[in-house]
């Protein structure tokens, strides 16, 4: 079963708050990473 993404607002690299959902709506690979 697909899992709905939560509605999140996160900063982009410039610090602008962005709704995650606004970047989606088409087939997307979301890569989660850490600099540590």
């Amino acid at each position, binding site marked *: 079963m*697909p899992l709905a993404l939560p509605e999140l607002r996160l900063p982009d690299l410039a610090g602008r708050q962005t709704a995650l959902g606004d970047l989606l709506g088409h087939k997307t690979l979301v890569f989660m990473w850490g600099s540590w």
Partner: protein
Amino acid sequence: MSIAVDAAGPDAARPFPERAGAGFPTLVDAHNRLGSYLGARVVPNGLLVNEAREIVWAKIGGFSVDNAEDVAVVDRWLADGTVPPADLAPADALRAELISTHLQLADLLRGQGDAAAGIAEMQRALQLDPDSFIVRKQIWMLRHPERFHPTIDFAWQKEQLARERAAEAACGPDGCPIPAATDRPTPRT
């Protein structure tokens, strides 16, 4: 797109996509809200999200565009919409919210210049999910930045994990004291 899980925020994450010349957007999840929702305790992770903003497949830990198997999953999904079976379920919502709240408070405290209290809040998040390397390793990064820059000392991480696991196993069911909290200087009155 990518999501940087980085307690230090956009400034800490920015150099990496810039250096890679990434042509896709990156958001920064400083409080690990998405990771907590998914029950993810490690990165790197790959999520395939459909047009309805639903995750249809996820690989938690070890996802890489240099891994031919991972790339094949993505290619097939793009070609015919099929994905391998994936066990997708949200983590315990209350626990996820508590962990994110501790991380958010840690962020606020560090922003006010109280690094020790910030780390103590991160320790509280770790106590809720001791297997979270996302939280544990970021505590290390704050306490031992020299082990992460200019290069990441993975041998040290392995030794540190063994030391912490041994200490935590000896603490019993009530958990360990929080060094960062008990080490705080007494405020002047």
